[in-house]
């Protein structure tokens, strides 16, 4: 099954995402911030990543750029998970190489439909 990297400094949200994806049969790697995520991504390759933008230590935009610099993640789908529906943040994410975004709040069904859309 596909491996998904879930990155969010909010424990409850990360747990919800992880639980939802695991119940749907995906393998999930969790990370609490960009530094943690980058380390996990270098250890094991993911098929799709979902990451919050606002995180301590390394934010989502910086993490995205770091991942896109790695050959194995140059073209992998990476989704930004954010409460910020403002155009500026979306454009910043796109410029950094984001595949798309999912705006909080979202429910588990919405999350799964987006994942299915991207991974098939």
């Amino acid at each position, binding site marked *: 099954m596909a491996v998904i990297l879930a990155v969010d400094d909010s424990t409850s949200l990360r747990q919800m995402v992880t639980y*939802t994806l695991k119940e749907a049969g995906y393998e999930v790697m969790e990370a609490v911030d960009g530094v943690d995520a980058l380390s996990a991504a270098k250890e094991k390759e993911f098929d799709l990543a979902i990451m*919050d933008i606002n995180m301590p230590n390394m934010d989502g935009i910086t993490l995205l750029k770091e991942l896109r610099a790695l050959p194995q993640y140059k*073209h992998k789908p990476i989704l930004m998970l954010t409460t910020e529906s403002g155009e500026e943040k979306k454009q910043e994410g796109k410029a950094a190489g984001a595949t*798309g975004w999912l705006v909080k*709040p979202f429910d588990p069904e919405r999350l799964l439909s987006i994942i299915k859309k991207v991974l*098939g």
Partner: protein
Amino acid sequence: MSVDLSQFHQTFFEESSEGLDEMESGLLALKIGADNEETINTIFRGAHSIKGGAGTFGFDAIAGFTHVMETLMDEIRGGNKKLSQEIIEAFLQSVDCLRDMMMIQQYNEEHDMDRVNAMQAELERLLYEGKTEEEIAAVDEEITEDEFEALLDQLHGPVGGTEETTVVIEPSADTGDFPSESEYQEILDQLPGGDDSGWNISFKPDADLMGNGNDPLHIIRELEGLGDLTVNADLSALSSFEQMNPVDLGISWDMKLVTDSTEEIIREAFAWVEDSCDLELNHFGKTADQAVTAEKESTMAEKAVTQTAPAQQTVQQPEAEPKPAVAEKPASDIKPAVSNAPAATATKSTRPAGGDHAETASIRVATDKIDALINMVGELVITQSMLSQMGNNFEISDLPRMVDGLAELERNSRELQEAVMRVRMVPISFAFARFPRLVRDLGNKLGKNFELKLTGETTSSTKP
């Protein structure tokens, strides 16, 4: 698949409590005129996380309130608003308010909406102070400019089109500003019906569309879910096999989608790639304006409800059919912020009697303590295994080794016990965490400056 989100609530309340403590510490540390960038970012992230979690778990009153805090702090960190003592004080009071809201939410009691609304109004006053109407609209972008213009058109006249359809909206006596469901159905019935209708879609992606992980197949899959889709691929721009770059697209698509979905929904499927393609949508069947008008009315009605009172959606049972925007409401009243949110969930439960029910049932443990525990358990297992093996084939000559093994077992057990006790040890500073705020508020009340010095706060103590 249905997920019971209540299993994550306790974690949300605990992390929010920590987040609020961090926000408060940050606010107390802010100094007007100094470089507060990192502290302001920390405070912003705290509000941002709480808002995101509250929205996800359906705590709309908390989400609505925190949204204003987040927006105001975002304005400050973006340099659009100057930090002031007044703002710091308002934030500190907001943190107190939010703490109480968390506790109330935890026990499913009713929020004191008078207090919440008053605090929120104060934050909004500070947020919008000195801004023009355009700047106010730009602060919160939950409604796009096109939608806002369309809403104004709706309020001041019929939506344009080749065939004018006048839709009569009479306010209902029972539901106030919004028509009832039967009245709305009457409006829909006034619009002419049709047979097959849908959209001809011309999708010409840029060659590098797949560079960021996008895949036209994702979009086609999503469109398939909206109706009956016919797809034709144009391969004329595809490079020869020898020159082909697997990541570069040389394909465009013409599609026909038979569906009742509106243009907005179709375009939603292309949202991630709208800047990386040429997209044309042409409606066929029922006139485009009639299809678009009906959906725009319902979409703007949904957004109008969301703009004026998002928290109300948790209490009012939302109608199955969305309502059109109301003609009577002037455009200037449509502000993104929440102003009157009624009480949250009505189910009451009694808080536990006595004790501090705000105390969390968990503690944070450093990973090095966990690593030490794991190592000690490993050594214990080795010792136990050695003794067990010795016991199976025991001879009197093994007695000294047995004695040494038992001494080792005793040492492992004692170390393990001490390590487990240390897990509960936390810096004693937790007991004095509220003192800085207490002293500050006392100083403000008495009009005096106090300096609070805490030393030895890293001394470990067992958390009760």
